[in-house]
């Protein structure tokens, strides 16, 4: 009769096996007892092997849990066990064990220091889990235990119903523990206060989350876009929303601290005539005249909306309107507008800096650092992470399938890495071509910058046609910004980069360089104009210029959306089929957003209501773009790497923010404010008020003065910079060390895998030889299918058959005890015990 091992491990139907005396096999074996505490008994104390695990897991409880798992299949007691089952029972195969080990390492939360096993869904054995959880003193704590348990449970891959049961079990056992009088000393007031603060904080967080959920902007529209287009296009809209939300605090700050006091001041100020009369009457000299607020004299015609000047010149829209006086409404409290203006300006720039720095560091960490290292996971990531679960429309799903198919085809045809195959002459050719194209690009950028400067400088254009004259510069500037990027993308295609990603990033960098150059030229022009005599109030002119730029940018966005998406779709549908489907250009649109926001940052200091205008503009643009995308565009076949691009876009935003701050600081620190308007009139530099304030402290608040002098001294700043550099260098060294460690560990892992295969082979031989002894017949030569599959699963294809045949021949002869070179000597002891017995 053929011998067939049974893969499921059930006893052979032909009869009970020879009972194994476990004591003779393993001295550590204890008889199964049914403990009265409901915990399952453990059968084998493979103490040697478990020792390692115990050290790793750091707790006796985990060891017992492992025993509990092992007991469900009495391994050595049933010697029909095959290697497949052994493989299935290896601790590394137990999903939950790995999950908890990994979770312990990766979850670095302050509150829960340990994480626990989860059970595979479908098993209803949550009693074990509850038992092991109850042994943790952190969770049994009188006060915090409840919250900690909930947090730990929430992160486990267990069914919700089971989680509730487990939580109830744990609270019951907690109550029992408490009742049994294991109260140590009474918890001090500190612990109780900490607990109540913790609970209060948690409730507050929940309420905040609820509020955020109900106030969430544009949720249904975003969901629709996501369903149709996936994560890439949605990332643009999320970015827009983020910038919109960023502008709101800026607006509120300026509103509360600058605009409203100004309005109050205007309402309550003494009229200009009265002031003049007083001055004349008393013959006062050396009076810092608070310049009377010139109320607008021009009438309101429709043109003002376009040019931003005329009626609007002397309103709260611009810097020139703001007084440098003191607002006194309620009694004696003084509200000095000078300090308010400067400090509010500094305040919102610092706020933006903090928000941007936090976002970019978080994004960089998530998308670059954690994703870096040995970049080996190209195709695995593609297969596992490419399907976007957000997709709900059939068209988008079909496109996703197609895009995946294309990528797989491309990968299999080996187009991925081609760099090494290029010979030297081709490389030279491409190098020179790229030098030429870069020169062309730089030349065009320089040319457009000069063009802008020329238009600003010549008065002829300005004076010829009234409206168009003023709008000439914004129109030209925005026009250049609209058209040149297409030129750059075309050049980029010529350059023939290997990876489409590189082409994209190069194109984006060129576009941003162009925009930065234009803004730089404009800033230079504006600050130079300040020294000229014919400008009454250069800050207001600056504000007006920026207002016009923002307005024209908005109009051009609308026009380009209309033409590039709507008209193109019509053309593609009805006349030129060759054009293909319109796709939403995520890169270009996001860069436009970044440019608009940079304008806003540049101009808010000189035109306080600009952030409000910007918010309205973003609001309208969101709806326009959303409608246009849904109506006109089709999802793209090429996948957009949203995560990495997000970091890069934040980087551009940060760079532009820094440039804007540098420009404004230059204006504040070095350019003399105009004489007759604005909060800083009559001073050498706008920053003077701070220095005067600090100096005024010298008398009574001397210590503050000293501190300030110390902090702003060059030595202090230099030492701070040196400390930062040292810190960064240290971090980098640590990172390099970790990378090396990762490499070593990978090699070690591969070696361990081979060790395991080798050992399991040995075990296979042993059990085979043992079976031979019990049934000495020729059937032993027939391979049982299970052992065949298990051996196949162990080693590489080539050596498999050879190894198998060798092992079979060897086992068919005499049982032999081969020496095993391995580090795990202790584990081998139990195996050698087995062999020596049989």
């Amino acid at each position: 009769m053929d011998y067939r091992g049974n893969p499921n491990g059930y006893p052979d139907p032909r009869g009970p096996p020879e009972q194994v005396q476990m004591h003779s096999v393993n001295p550590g074996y204890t008889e199964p007892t049914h403990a009265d505490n409901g915990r399952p008994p453990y059968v084998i104390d493979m103490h040697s092997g478990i020792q390692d695990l115990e050290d790793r897991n750091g707790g006796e409880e985990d060891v017992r849990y492992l025993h509990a798992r092992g007991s469900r299949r009495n391994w050595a007691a049933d010697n029909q066990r095959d290697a497949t089952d052994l493989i299935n029972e290896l601790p590394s195969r137990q999903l939950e064990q790995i999950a908890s080990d990994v979770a312990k390492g990766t979850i670095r939360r302050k509150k829960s220091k340990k994480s626990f096993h989860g059970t595979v869904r479908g098993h209803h054995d949550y009693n074990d889990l509850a038992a092991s959880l109850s042994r943790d003193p952190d969770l049994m704590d009188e006060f915090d235990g409840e919250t900690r348990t909930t947090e730990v449970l929430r992160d486990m891959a267990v069914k919700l119903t089971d989680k509730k049961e487990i939580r109830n079990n744990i609270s019951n056992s907690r109550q029992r523990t408490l009742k049994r009088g294991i109260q140590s000393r009474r918890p001090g007031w500190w612990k109780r206060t900490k607990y109540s603060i913790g609970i209060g904080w948690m409730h507050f967080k929940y309420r905040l989350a609820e509020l955020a959920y109900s106030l969430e902007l544009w949720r249904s529209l975003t969901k629709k876009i996501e369903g149709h287009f996936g994560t890439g296009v949605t990332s643009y809209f999320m970015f827009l929303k983020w910038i919109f939300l960023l502008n709101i605090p800026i607006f509120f700050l300026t509103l509360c601290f600058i605009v409203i006091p100004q309005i109050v001041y205007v309402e309550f100020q003494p009229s200009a005539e009265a002031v003049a009369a007083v001055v004349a009457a008393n013959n006062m000299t050396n009076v810092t005249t608070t310049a009377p607020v010139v109320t607008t004299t021009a009438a309101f015609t429709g043109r003002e909306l376009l040019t931003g000047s005329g009626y609007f010149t002397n309103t709260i829209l611009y810097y020139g309107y703001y007084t440098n006086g003191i607002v006194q409404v309620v009694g004696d409290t003084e509200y000095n507008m000078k300090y308010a203006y400067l400090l509010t300006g500094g305040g919102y720039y610092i706020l933006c800096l903090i928000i941007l720095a936090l976002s970019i560091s978080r994004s960089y960490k998530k998308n670059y650092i954690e994703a870096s290292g040995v970049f080996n996971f190209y195709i695995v990531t593609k297969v596992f992470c490419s399907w976007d679960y957000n997709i709900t429309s059939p068209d988008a799903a079909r496109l996703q399938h197609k895009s995946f198919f294309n990528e797989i085809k491309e990968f299999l045809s080996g187009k991925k890495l081609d760099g090494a195959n290029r010979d030297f002459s081709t490389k030279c050719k491409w190098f020179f071509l790229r030098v030429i194209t870069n020169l062309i690009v730089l030349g065009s950028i320089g040319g457009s910058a000069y063009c802008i400067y020329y238009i600003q400088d010549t008065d002829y254009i300005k004076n010829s046609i009234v409206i168009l004259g003023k709008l000439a510069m914004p129109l030209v500037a925005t026009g250049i910004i609209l058209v040149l990027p297409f030129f750059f993308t075309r050049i980029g295609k010529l350059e023939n980069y290997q990876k489409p990603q590189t082409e994209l990033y190069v194109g984006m960098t060129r576009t941003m360089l162009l925009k930065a150059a234009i803004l730089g030229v404009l800033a230079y022009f504006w600050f130079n104009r300040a020294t000229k005599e014919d400008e009454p109030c250069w800050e207001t002119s600056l504000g007006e210029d920026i207002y016009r730029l923002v307005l024209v940018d908005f109009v051009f966005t609308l026009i380009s959306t209309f033409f590039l998406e709507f008209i193109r779709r019509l053309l593609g549908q009805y006349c030129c089929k060759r054009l293909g489907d319109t796709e939403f250009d995520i890169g270009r649109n996001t860069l436009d957003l970044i440019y608009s926001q940079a304008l806003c940052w540049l101009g808010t200091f000189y035109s306080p209501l600009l952030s409000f205008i910007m918010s309205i503009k973003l609001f309208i643009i969101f709806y326009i773009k959303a409608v246009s995308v849904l109506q006109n565009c089709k999802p793209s076949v090429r996948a957009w790497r949203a995560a990495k691009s997000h970091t890069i876009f934040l980087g551009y935003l940060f760079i532009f923010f820094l440039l804007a701050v540098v420009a404004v600081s230059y204006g504040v620190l070095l350019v003399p404010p105009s004489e007759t308007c604005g909060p800083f009139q009559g001073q050498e530099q706008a920053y003077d008020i701070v220095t005067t304030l600090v100096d005024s402290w010298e008398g009574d608040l001397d210590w503050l003065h000293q501190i300030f002098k110390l902090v702003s001294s060059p030595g202090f700043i230099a030492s701070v910079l040196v400390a930062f550099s040292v810190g960064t260098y240290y971090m980098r060294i640590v990172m390099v060390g970790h990378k090396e460690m990762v490499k070593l560990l990978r090699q070690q892992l591969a070696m361990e895998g081979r060790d395991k295969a080798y050992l399991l082979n040995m075990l296979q031989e042993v059990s085979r030889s043992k079976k031979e002894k019990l049934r000495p017949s020729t059937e032993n030569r027939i391979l049982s299918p299970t052992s065949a599959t298990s051996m196949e699963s162990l080693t590489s294809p080539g050596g498999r058959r050879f190894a198998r045949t060798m092992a079979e021949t060897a086992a068919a002869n005499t049982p032999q005890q081969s020496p095993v070179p391995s580090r795990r000597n202790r584990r081998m002891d139990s195996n050698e015990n087995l062999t020596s017995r049989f």
Partner: protein
Amino acid sequence: MGASQSVFSEEELQDYQELTYFTKKEILHVFKIFRDLSPRDVDRDRNVKLNEDLVMSLPELKMNPFKDRIVRVFSSEEGCLTFEDFLDMMSVFSEKAPKEIKAQYAFKIYDFDGDDEISRDDLKKMVLRLCPSQKDTELKKQEVDRLVGEILKEADLDNDDRLSFSEFQHVISKAPEFESSFRIRL
């Protein structure tokens, strides 16, 4: 949504809020979606078990090639889902769920035969689902085999011809796109 608010007591909502990644309003929203699948049955008994096919007809799941695996992983009984299972499923797929728990469930979803390992067959099935055999997305058999071989070459560290959870977790932790793609927004 006053009707569904009276279905749950305050304490139950609190429990759900603590054990999932949702706030109370989101939980009620999820319940509304669940109820819309079969209003009469759910009104009759809140803990009714809805059929798998009914849940798979949700617009969020309908176009997903792995929808049957998703529903199977989260169901407590063969072929049907209760509300708590559904809530659990949506909670894991929500934005606030951390990467680790998403990775665990992703592993279970992609493990077609349920043996806690992603073997070659699992990978083959997965690739065939991502590239269905329609005329423009059909992959030849040897291409699929080659692809599966490449995947294992990259990700299988201990050379046992299958991906264990730790290897899967290792790959996923290096992929920033995982979190944004393994998400269903409600």
